[in-house]
């Protein structure tokens, strides 16, 4: 018997804020320094030290709240989450509990089938990251690196609104896009700047009551999120169908084995003994500050996509792709502005040749390798018919490899399109003279041979004949 199951997913996304210093100390947040080189006495939890809140982290959290249409708390409270762990120097993490800085927002997510889904965001709160325990190369010992300790985070807690692993990934990507748009997080998932916990449960279709959930901790790639959830859903359904019960527990995803494993059950869970941190005053924000942040907000991805569609006459899909990151959108706009009458051409090139080339070398749209102005230089030569689209691809490859401008390559390789009707006619006549048989067949009614003549003339002109002109002249000449 197979009941119809519904999957219910909520995500807790941790996004490291891109401040230069830590949330409660002046130590730097840069990634990759030698262990403990960026841990101040505050980060080390030395006796007598006290936290001082970094205002930039607050501004960034407010930025996020405004971007998801959430309520910004005029007063929020930092609380201590108490537990013992070597990478948590104070024995507590400073977080927000009862009164978070951001509450009740939402994001609209476009799904694969083109439909839009609204995902509620319960809250987003400020907190400090923990350090890291190190095991590699230390034998039986454990090392502690506190460089990450005190790095500011916002934890973005969604409603249990997602119904499939794909929806969860689409939502996570949307948040990822947004925080990078806002320039509040670098989004680097490999370095752990953007990671999530997934709360997953299943229930019979139509049931109102939520099933017992498992929380999968610390997943740091979109692919792993999808796989971990898929595995977990299958595990839970199989468990229930074979007469078992899902227990509330924390699980870890093992990407090597592609499975989730129990970490600790509810009974073993810490009692975090949250209470307001007496070292920090409640965080009070006034209207003026919030307005200032609002004024500084960039155009958001959804707004930008709508504008792209109308301003550049793009499809909703293309507009969505081009606004997926701020760098890409800015890049596209720069190109489109430089080639004003060809926004669609610009879109095709940015999403086509450029995206493929960047992808191959794992580069972003902001890459130095092909500045927007340089690509625009190429597109202008297509637009003014100096080269054909086909030749343009060849030029692009040369530009990518050598970093020269389109004009220089067209010039040095002599790729300029032949638009002189006399020259094209001469080439046609030569081909006709060399291919009497084909000519006779064509004239006898074999229309398909038209393509043969196009090809031959292109070959003779090294592809430089203007295709439209060539077509026209051939149509005139071939019939005799």
């Amino acid at each position, binding site marked *: 018997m197979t009941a119809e199951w519904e999957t219910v997913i909520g995500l807790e996304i941790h996004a490291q804020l891109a401040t230069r210093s830590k949330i409660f100390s002046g130590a730097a947040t840069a990634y990759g320094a030698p262990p403990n080189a960026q841990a101040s006495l505050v980060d080390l939890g030395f006796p007598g030290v006290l936290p001082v809140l970094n205002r930039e982290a607050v501004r960034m959290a407010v930025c996020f709240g405004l971007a998801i249409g959430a309520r910004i708390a005029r007063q929020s409270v930092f609380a201590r989450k108490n537990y013992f762990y070597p990478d948590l120097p104070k024995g507590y993490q400073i977080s927000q509990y009862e009164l978070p800085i951001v509450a009740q927002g939402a994001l609209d997510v476009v799904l694969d089938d083109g439909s839009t889904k609204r995902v509620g965001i319960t809250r987003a709160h400020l907190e400090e990251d923990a350090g890291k325990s190190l095991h590699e190369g230390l034998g039986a010992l454990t090392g502690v690196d506190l460089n990450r300790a005190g790095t500011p985070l916002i934890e973005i807690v969604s409603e249990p609104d997602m119904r499939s692993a794909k929806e969860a990934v689409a939502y996570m990507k949307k948040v990822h896009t947004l925080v990078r748009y806002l320039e509040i997080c670098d989004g680097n998932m490999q370095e752990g700047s953007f990671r999530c916990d997934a709360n997953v449960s299943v229930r019979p279709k139509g049931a109102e009551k939520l099933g017992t959930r498992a929380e999968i901790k610390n997943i740091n790639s979109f692919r792993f999120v999808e796989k971990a959830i898929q595995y977990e859903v299958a595990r839970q359904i199989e468990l229930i169908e074979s007469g078992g019960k899902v227990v509330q527990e924390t699980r870890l995803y093992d990407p090597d084995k592609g499975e989730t494993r129990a970490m600790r059950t509810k009974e073993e869970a810490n009692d975090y003994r949250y209470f307001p941190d007496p070292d920090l*005053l409640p965080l009070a924000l006034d209207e003026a500050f919030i307005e200032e942040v609002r004024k500084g907000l960039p155009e958001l991805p959804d707004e930008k996509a709508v504008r792209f569609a109308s301003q550049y006459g793009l499809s909703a899909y293309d507009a969505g792709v081009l606004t997926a990151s701020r760098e890409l959108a800015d890049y596209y706009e720069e190109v489109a502005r430089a080639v004003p009458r060809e926004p669609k051409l610009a879109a095709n090139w940015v999403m086509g040749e450029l995206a493929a080339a960047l992808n191959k070398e794992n580069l972003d749209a902001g890459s130095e390798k092909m500045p927007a102005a340089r690509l625009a230089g190429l597109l202008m030569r297509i637009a003014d018919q100096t080269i054909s689209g086909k030749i343009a691809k060849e030029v692009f490859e040369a530009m990518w490899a050598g970093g020269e401008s389109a004009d220089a390559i067209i010039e040095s390789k002599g790729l300029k399109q032949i638009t002189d009707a006399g020259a094209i006619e001469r080439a046609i006549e030569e081909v006709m003279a060399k291919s009497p048989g084909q000519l006779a067949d064509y004239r006898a009614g074999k229309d398909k041979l038209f393509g043969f003549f196009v090809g031959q003339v292109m070959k003779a002109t090294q592809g430089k004949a203007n295709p439209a002109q060539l077509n026209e002249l051939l149509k005139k000449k071939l019939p005799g």
Partner: protein
Amino acid sequence: MSELLHKNGLTQLAAGLRTKQFSSVELVRAYLQRIEASQSVLNAFISVTAEQALGAAAAADRDIAAGRGGALAGVPIAHKDLFCTAGVRTTCGSRMLANFVSPYDATVVAKLKSAGAITLGKLNMDEFAMGSSNETSYYGPVRNPWNIDFVPGGSSGGSAAAVAARLIPGATATDTGGSIRQPAALCGITGIKPTYGRVSRYGMVAFASSLDQGGVLATSAEDAALMLREMAGFDPNDSTSVDTPVPDYVASLDAPLAGVKIGLIKEFVDEGLDRENERRIREALAVLERAGASLREVSLPHLPSSVPVYYVVAPAECSSNLARYDGVRFGHRCQEPRDLQDLYRRSRGEGFGAEVKRRIMTGTYVLSAGYYDAYYLKAQRVRQLISADFKRAFGEVDVLVGPTSPTAAFRIGAKTADPITMYLNDIYTIGANLAGLPALSIPCGFVGGLPVGLQIVGAHFAEARILNVAHRYQLETDWHRKLPERFA
């Protein structure tokens, strides 16, 4: 002459140094001798930093000669051993920090240093400032200079005993529930706990963060005013310190008391108050009335709940503040831990004493899921009511007065078996901590040969006012000039 220098207060000493009647080196030597001579009897110091002190004194003498010394140039002081001092160990009276040398100076330490004060050492205290008798120190109890079989009070017992025995003219101390005022009363000296946020807590090892406040123990209100003025002020490193200018507490000491309204806290004259002690308080109030102040009785109905509220809030905060002592980065670490749990259990089990453990456990309990509302949240609500009581009272009077502690000092060991009896010692002092108010204690006579104290509580940031009232009282009386015979 140098054997008589200790008869002077801090103000006179600062003046004597400035006018070059004696040098800082002479003065420091004289005090170091007294410290050395008394240490085996009183046990007031945990560390004595003679060498550094003499070096600093010589430098102070050069500064004074060059006319560029600060307000405390060359004046010897000592710090309660929970103020972090760079290069000198800071034990907090605990085995846990027996080996801890801070890499930085507490803001208070740095401020006093830049005012020219010379640090002679670190003073004994109840472990992590938890205690009212200085019997919980890992470094042994401190004895009361008035009778060495008696406690000096706590937790700043070392600071109070040292000042009372004139081993030092002034000392830093901290007050979370009475830890400056109660030992001041029991040792017959003057101690002030300022408004919460007036003195930086940066570098002051935390016990209960919402209550801890650094202050001064000295022999007179005048001296306390001088030293506090140099310690107080906003500190960007302490988010709870308040950015408001520090008035010159010394300049306003002499203001006449005519028209000053004094309220005797009715709830403090209760059945727990020793009758002789009450008599000393009433005599002191009569002195203030004669000096021009008007006296009335004021009721603060929620104040009797102070002790239970305090023993929820303070342990809750302490249980979290002391979590960092885990044997990982600093402090005591057990021998050969088997695993992480073992490291935590034994390091903390061996490093902390019984009273600290009792409070960590109490605090952990009151913050636990299912108990938080009933204990911590309720205590915070009652704390609000107590604050409101004070606020109302300060609408009627300028200062509030009452006894500092229910009795004079008790015998060493008399209350160690019963923590509740010990906790009740702070019944009159805790209220000011819960409400964040400035409060001081001054000696107002003796009961059975042991000193007792009068407590004066002010409105927020009214340190100048309570110091003024205390100073006017001390102009009329000489209790603060009395020295224990043994240390005269």
